């Protein structure tokens, strides 16, 4: 798959997980694209952890407002009915369980639903930003990422990188698979377009339980 097609496949599938009226926080990068596949009737409310709900599309060229940016610092818009607030209320919303779904990228996820997505020691230490609060606080945590890093598994038996949070991931959505994190382990519930179970297993280190209802 082309990069653009991978993103589209993942983002479209994540969008199906959102329910009418959900409050949703989308991480920077790939998760941002999810908003493109959510129609207005769904009344999804996107939260931007730098301080508002009602996050709308990127601002049109020439229409940027320097005071309205997303958590990546990019000029965006606020939709009618939205509201601005400070960081303290923003994270009361996040930590307090008022975000229904958070969608984040990952470097590694494992069989226990552990997530590593904020540093590679000695190499890259961007910092956790709001990720640790989001993963701990949101009602449902969806990891949205490419299934492997150029063939190297990212879905592992056990994360080797420093964790973002332990046992908080509920679902993993990649271009190849939809995987649910359960008490019994990782359950493969859905295959991506033109993908076989064998294809998935080949690039997954973690043990996968194949769902009876595999789609």
């Amino acid at each position, binding site marked *: 798959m082309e990069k653009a097609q991978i993103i589209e496949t993942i983002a479209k599938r994540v969008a199906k997980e959102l329910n009418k009226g959900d409050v949703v926080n989308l991480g920077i990068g790939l998760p941002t694209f999810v908003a493109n596949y959510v129609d207005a009737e769904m009344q999804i409310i996107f*939260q931007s952890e730098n301080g508002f*709900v*009602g996050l709308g599309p990127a601002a049109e060229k020439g229409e940027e407002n320097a005071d309205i940016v997303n958590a990546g610092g990019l000029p965006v818009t606020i939709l*009618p009915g939205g*509201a601005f607030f400070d960081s303290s209320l923003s994270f009361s919303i996040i930590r307090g369980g008022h975000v229904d779904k958070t969608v984040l990228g990952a470097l590694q996820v494992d069989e226990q639903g552990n997530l590593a997505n904020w540093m590679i020691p000695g190499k890259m230490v961007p910092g956790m930003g709001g990720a640790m609060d989001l993963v701990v606080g949101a009602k449902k945590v969806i990891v949205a990422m490419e299934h492997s890093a150029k063939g190297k598994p990212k879905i592992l038996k056990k994360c080797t990188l420093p964790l973002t949070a332990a046992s908080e991931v509920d679902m993993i959505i990649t271009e190849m698979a939809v995987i649910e994190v359960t008490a019994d382990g990782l359950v493969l519930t859905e295959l991506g377009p033109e993908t076989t179970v064998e294809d998935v297993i080949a690039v997954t280190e973690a043990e996968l339980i194949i769902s009876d209802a595999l789609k």
Partner: protein
Amino acid sequence: MVEIIGLQEAAEMVSDGASVMIGGFIGVGGPNSIIEALIENNVKDLTIISNDTVTPDLGIGKLVVNKQIKKAIVTHIGTNPETGRQMNAGELEIELVPQGTLAERIRAGGAGLGGVLTKAGLKTPVEEGKRKLDINGQDYLLEMPLKADIALLKASKADKAGNLYYNGATRNFNPVMATAAELVIAEVDEIVEIGEINPNDVMTPGIFVNFIVKGGR
């Protein structure tokens, strides 16, 4: 997704035995019209979390007089002699909480924090039965988060997205309570169209609010 409902409909969401946060400060900024409907319904055994029990002729005060409250977690009962009488007679359980501690306990409940560390109440009856922590040589009381089944708020204005705006001193406990209950109902003086409250000036974002009710002033 916010729905506009009537006073009776709002009152019916409060069941016998429910825990209910109620905004207001001696009734100012309190959902006094919804409370009138609660009195008509005569729901019983409520656990009330609020600043005070108002006066016998208004809001929560009337719930006390009508004996609908089993327990009240409050900071002050001096404005309602009937509360003191029921407490002394063993008819009503009262948990007295310092006002700043009450605000923080509710906020902690809404913000996913494990508790509140405060000096208020140290070496007073408030500390009885509570854990104390030594933090860098200073004592702090550990006070527990508060949550409730329902929060009944009062706002001056709501837009149809449920965003709330409070005038003057009516804000008090309403914004923290909005964050700490399973179900949030706001009685408002005025319902306006989306866009009529500037997103900068929203005091309680609509995501916290489930229902709005047009109340009488």
